[in-house]
């Protein structure tokens, strides 16, 4: 039944790097979204790009689907195995291959963690995309998901920093998309690949752009009577032409949870808080800081805390980044949602979330990247019995985001988790256009099937090029 595929994988990557027994496969049954699990026939951990290519080739020859996996920290089930398929885990591919600061480029293998990239170019340069999971998540996973993070409002997303990829296509062919230089002639396949959630091939090498570290930073938190007031501050800052490096919001419940874990001494009687970071020249930062403080004051801001040193800055950030794990202190079970709205619709959508929470009798804590309107509602529920109801509430929050002109996901991806929501945002011709791209890369449908698209689709043959028959051209005959 296996057609010798597992043996073939053992020959490629070494027997010790192919896992088939249930105990060890269990580690790979889920990614960061634990309520989906599947058992693959094997997990292979190749040690080189060539081994990845050969593993993909072996899968293609056997007609067996495969799923590439980075650190497995994704939150949409993008690295969920296909039952009886192969998981290609790139966690052994973790070398920094080249640091070329003269050209502001770094070349890494896909298993390198996000934070290691910044470390490799510190202190004069840094790599801006900074997902909260940055100490564990891999660059390969970041490329697959087009990961964001708190500093994306000013600096942009993974896709704005990837200049080159080496990709193994689903048939085992190796292609170079982009490179160290910008603007390779031809289609922007690099742009199409980043964020394709492992469905277009497996990345074996990533070239990233890094940027000079800012000369100065100012980080502050301020507390407000309500999230509406905090939202008004965000709007006023942006309309004043200020582009903060980060602007993050937490509501009362999220503050309470984070405080229990981080003990930053935050007041617990406010409606919401903002963490605002400015960066740039010291002179420009200070000028902007005064403007920001004025705006906060106008909207009832109080208990303003400006980080006095790097330790305090780290504490303010730790408190914000603790919000997800800290939610477990309020409720042992919760869903992390990831929706996007136009920033100006914030108050209205938060009101809708409150109504839904009340209707369902559940608590929803809100954490968001307020600059770019990326909401992370945490839907808390009591236990397995309530899971289905909580998932329903979570889905209705997404509907509210899309109805407000937003998106199903800002940074976590569609994966398996949201594929059934795709028709809320995309119509049939849109999905058919997506499928054209998918089929160009992977006509056999072996790379991470069952993700992104709401229903399974086949590719079919490419019709031959349309040629005008000489009789048609001469007007003698017509085509029907």
């Amino acid at each position, binding site marked *: 039944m296996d057609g010798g595929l597992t043996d073939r994988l053992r020959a490629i990557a070494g027997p010790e790097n192919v896992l088939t027994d249930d105990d060890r496969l269990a580690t790979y049954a889920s990614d960061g979204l634990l309520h989906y699990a599947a058992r693959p026939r094997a997990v292979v951990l190749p040690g080189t790009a060539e081994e990845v290519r050969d593993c993909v080739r072996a899968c293609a020859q056997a007609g067996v689907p495969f799923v590439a996996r980075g650190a497995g920290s994704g939150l949409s089930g993008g690295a969920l195995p296909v039952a009886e398929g192969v998981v290609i885990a790139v966690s052994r591919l973790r070398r920094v291959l080249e640091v070329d600061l003269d050209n502001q480029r770094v070349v890494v293998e896909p298993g390198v963690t996000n934070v290691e990239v910044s470390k490799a170019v510190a202190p004069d340069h840094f790599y801006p995309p900074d997902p909260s999971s940055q100490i564990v998540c891999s660059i390969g996973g970041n490329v697959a998901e087009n990961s964001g993070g708190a500093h994306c409002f000013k600096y942009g997303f993974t896709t704005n920093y990837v200049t080159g990829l080496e990709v193994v296509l689903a048939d085992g062919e190796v292609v170079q998309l982009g490179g160290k*230089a910008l603007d390779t002639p031809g289609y*922007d396949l690099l742009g199409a690949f980043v964020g394709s959630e492992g469905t277009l091939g497996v990345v074996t090498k990533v070239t990233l752009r890094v940027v000079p570290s800012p000369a100065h930073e100012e980080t502050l938190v301020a507390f407000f009577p309500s999230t509406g007031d905090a939202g008004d501050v965000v709007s006023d800052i942006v309309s004043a032409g200020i582009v903060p490096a980060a602007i993050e919001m937490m509501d009362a419940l999220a503050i309470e949870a984070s405080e229990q874990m981080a003990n930053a001494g935050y007041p617990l009687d406010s409606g919401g808080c903002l963490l605002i970071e400015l960066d740039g020249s010291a002179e420009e930062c200070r*000028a902007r800081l005064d403007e920001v403080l004025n705006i906060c004051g106008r909207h009832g801001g109080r208990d303003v805390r400006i980080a006095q040193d790097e330790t305090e800055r780290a504490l303010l950030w730790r408190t914000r980044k603790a919000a997800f794990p800290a939610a477990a202190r309020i409720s042992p079970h919760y869903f992390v949602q990831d929706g996007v709205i136009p920033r100006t619709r914030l108050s209205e959508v938060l009101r809708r979330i409150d109504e839904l929470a009340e209707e369902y009798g559940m608590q929803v804590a809100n954490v968001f990247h307020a600059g770019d309107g990326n909401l992370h509602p945490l839907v808390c529920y009591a236990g397995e019995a309530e899971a289905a109801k909580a998932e329903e509430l979570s889905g209705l929050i997404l509907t509210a985001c899309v109805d407000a*002109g937003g998106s199903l996901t800002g940074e976590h991806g569609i994966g398996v988790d949201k594929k059934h929501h795709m028709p809320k945002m995309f119509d049939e011709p849109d999905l058919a256009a*997506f499928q054209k791209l998918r089929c160009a890369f992977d006509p056999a449908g072996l790379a991470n099937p069952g993700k992104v698209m709401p229903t399974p689709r086949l590719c079919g043959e490419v019709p031959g090029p349309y040629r005008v028959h000489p009789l048609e051209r001469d007007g003698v005959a017509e085509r029907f």
Partner: protein
Amino acid sequence: MATTVRQEAPDSAADAAALLAEGGRVRIAGRGTRAGWGNVPGDPDLVLRTDAMSEVVEHNAGDLTAVLEAGVPLAEAQRAFAAAGQMLALDPPEDPAGSIGGLFATADGGPLRHRYGAPRDLIVGITVALADGTVAKAGGRVIKNVAGYDLAKLFTGAFGTLGLIVTVAVRLHPRPPEAVTVRARAGDPAALARAAGAAAHHPLEADALDVAWADGTGEVLVRLSGATAASRAHATAQLLELDAEVVEDDDALWAAQRARQRGELVVKVSALATELPRVLGAAAAQGGTVAGRAALGLSWVGLPADDGAARVERLRQALPGARCVVLDAPEDVRAALDPWDAREDPTRVLMRRVKARFDPGDVCNPGLFLVP
């Protein structure tokens, strides 16, 4: 050869898609600027223009986003955004007719790319008319969004060969207040590149960082904006270690720099930033001028048109690691060489597969691009 080619300017996406579905050879012309870029195509059966799709569909000032039909002239869109103190941070050489659709289809741009990125970095959503007669959209109208495949990037820079761009959703930026420019001169390519490199590696937060080269001498141009622009400019002038001045009224200076991206014969060179001295030297050896984005490794080399094809070939030979794409050029030059500097490799095979899926009949701009 046809004496009169049929022209259509549909006013809706559905009508545009229906025209593409008729088949034949369709020249997607937008508003007709940049018509001389790419291979010399054969005569089309139909010229498709976007003049009748020229509405600013949305300008969401509070969200710093906009949705624009392809036929909107860039200059007109910028006027609308400027009224709210905003801009689309793309600044190709001035051309009153140049449209949004053409800007994205050709991935053109100007000096602001240094700070704000390319068209691919500012597009957040797209609607396209496809050769199968359907109208499809991708992305959305919020600045952060990873739902579905990023077809907006795929169609950006595809020169209309995958379908017609009907609308784009874009991210806007606040219009920077009082800008100043530091201008430093050098007669030696290496010294010029060294100064540009120093600026590129310093956290200046410059809006633009360009080099210009003509007639044996060059300039580094650094534009700074913000409340503290003037004082930062003086620090920047020192950093460059060249004979530098601070220009306060700098609009004309930048218009002239952007104009260097157009000419009788212009080659866009994609290289590493560290190759700048070689690019300057190779351009000078062919009697050329250069406008370059110093930190990005992108240069526009203007060459004399006489004996143009040979000059382009010699430029390419002098820059083996770079890609040299011919933009503005007389037809005989474009016919004598491959304007795209394409390489036959598995990536090009993949590009052909993409083209074959979106436009199997080769209806959209046949013969113009480096595939099929």
